[in-house]
């Protein structure tokens, strides 16, 4: 894998450069169009106003508090979903009979959009972070569970035979064979779930009104503070990008052996 590293790096570097140029061009267009009157300036403030609002945000405790709230809900929801999906996935995947009985139910529950649970969440928890957590966990759980189920199905029969021959009981087989096999899938699930969780964290704040970035967006909108509103939307976008970078970083760290196996084969 070493020889491919250098060309790969140059490719990504020039790709990054082009990406940056494209992005700057996008910001320039954003700046020009409202000023030139192509876009209604009422709804689309030029970029420099949004930038100014962002600068103000940086000095605002309420802004940082909101970022923290959203991050907390995201993190907590994602963690709960991951742990629950890992447990359920490993158990269902390792006990075929259970899987056969639950598969249809899972296929029924999985496509229900998490936002359809908003009324239920409000009934149960009101304007509390628990409402947001319900939505986040529900959405992320299925993403991760499905991946883990794929992963457990991918377990090599020879590896399982080996484990049985050498006296590994059911629990040890899960721990030493099924889980390591499913881990790459679990991490993909984690990455997908992380994005979905952020979407739902912001959605909940926006619609239900529990504190966080999404709620700030709603407040800015009702005050017609559009540059402020855009600055918050962009903040949510930046959080999304960071979440993805973080998830990919974890992916690389956790799967050192896996990547090497792949490229070696």
């Amino acid at each position: 894998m070493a020889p491919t590293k250098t060309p790969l790096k140059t490719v990504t570097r020039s790709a990054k450069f082009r990406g940056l140029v494209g992005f700057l061009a996008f910001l320039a267009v954003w700046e020009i169009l409202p000023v030139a009157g192509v876009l209604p300036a009422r709804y689309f403030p030029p970029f420099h106003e949004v930038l100014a609002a962002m600068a103000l945000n940086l000095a605002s405790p309420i802004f940082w508090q909101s970022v923290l709230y959203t991050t907390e809900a995201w993190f907590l929801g994602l963690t709960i979903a991951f742990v629950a999906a890992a447990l359920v996935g490993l158990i269902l995947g390792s006990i075929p009979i259970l899987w056969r009985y639950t598969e249809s139910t899972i296929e029924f529950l999985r496509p229900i959009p998490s936002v359809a649970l908003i009324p239920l969440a409000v009934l149960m928890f009101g304007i509390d972070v628990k409402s947001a957590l319900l939505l986040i966990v529900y959405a992320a759980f299925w993403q991760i569970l499905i991946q883990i189920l794929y992963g457990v199905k991918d377990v090599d029969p020879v590896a399982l035979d080996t484990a049985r021959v050498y006296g590994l009981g059911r629990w040890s087989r899960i721990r030493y064979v099924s889980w390591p096999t499913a881990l790459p899938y679990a991490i993909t699930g984690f990455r997908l779930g992380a994005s979905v969780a952020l979407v739902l964290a912001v959605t909940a704040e926006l619609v239900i009104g529990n504190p966080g970035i999404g709620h700030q967006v709603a407040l800015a909108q009702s005050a017609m503070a559009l540059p402020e509103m855009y600055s918050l939307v962009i903040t949510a976008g930046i959080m999304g990008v960071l979440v993805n970078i973080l998830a990919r970083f974890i992916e690389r760290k956790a799967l050192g052996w896996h990547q090497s196996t792949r490229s070696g084969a």
Partner: protein
Amino acid sequence: MTMNDPRAGEARSRDPMLAIRQLRKVYDGSGRTVEAIRDVTFSLDEGELVCIVGPSGAGKTTLLRCIAGLLEPTSGEVMLAGKPIAGPSPGMAVVFQEYGRSLFPWMRVRQNVELPLKEKGKSPEERRRLVDESLEAVGLRDAREAYPWQLSGGMQQRVAIARAIAYEPKVLLMDEPFASVDAQTRAELEDLVRAIWVRLGVTIVFVTHDIDESVYLGERVVVLSASPTTVMQDVPIDLGSVRSQLETRADPRFGQLRGQIYALIKDAKHQV
């Protein structure tokens, strides 16, 4: 080497170490039934090294899986030291043909060898000793901290052998373990099996479809017929206990035995 100490003081019973009696295995898959093994009976005394040869599809893997307790026979029984086998037993270890898939890629060599010992409840010191001794025995002491996929095929199969002997089995089962390594490595590994057998006195069942290999390795060769599988003949190999790739294979007796088994297997194929 003191790996098999526990057995030393045991009263020698008249039970064979491993007995397979009238074993029959029918795969009963959806709509398709395959009689993989019709009737197989043979036994091994303690410390014997027996090779099993048979044409492809004769049910060798099926037989080995039944012996290992991974597969339930349709009828008949497998007895280990006088006790019937019902599932994998701590008295048996298996070396699989697919070494690459049998070693866990997420564990280092040392961890792969150690895991079964942990499951057996061995103390950390005991585990260390067994891991060191067995890796030493297969000539891989320096690869302790490597991952299996960093090693060559031959080295990986050595790790699998080390894992098997560290487990201190009464019976070591090997299913075409060297079918997918090159000729040179294969010869080395064959000598390794002989060396380990001499050194540890462990009972070995070695399955292969290679007649030369079976004659070179075995003290006895059990020849299986083609499916529906029975034992055609149980051939004693009188080539002495010290074997060498050059001399043994050049021995006229080696040629005779090889020819005899070759003819048997040819017959076996023609009967179908």
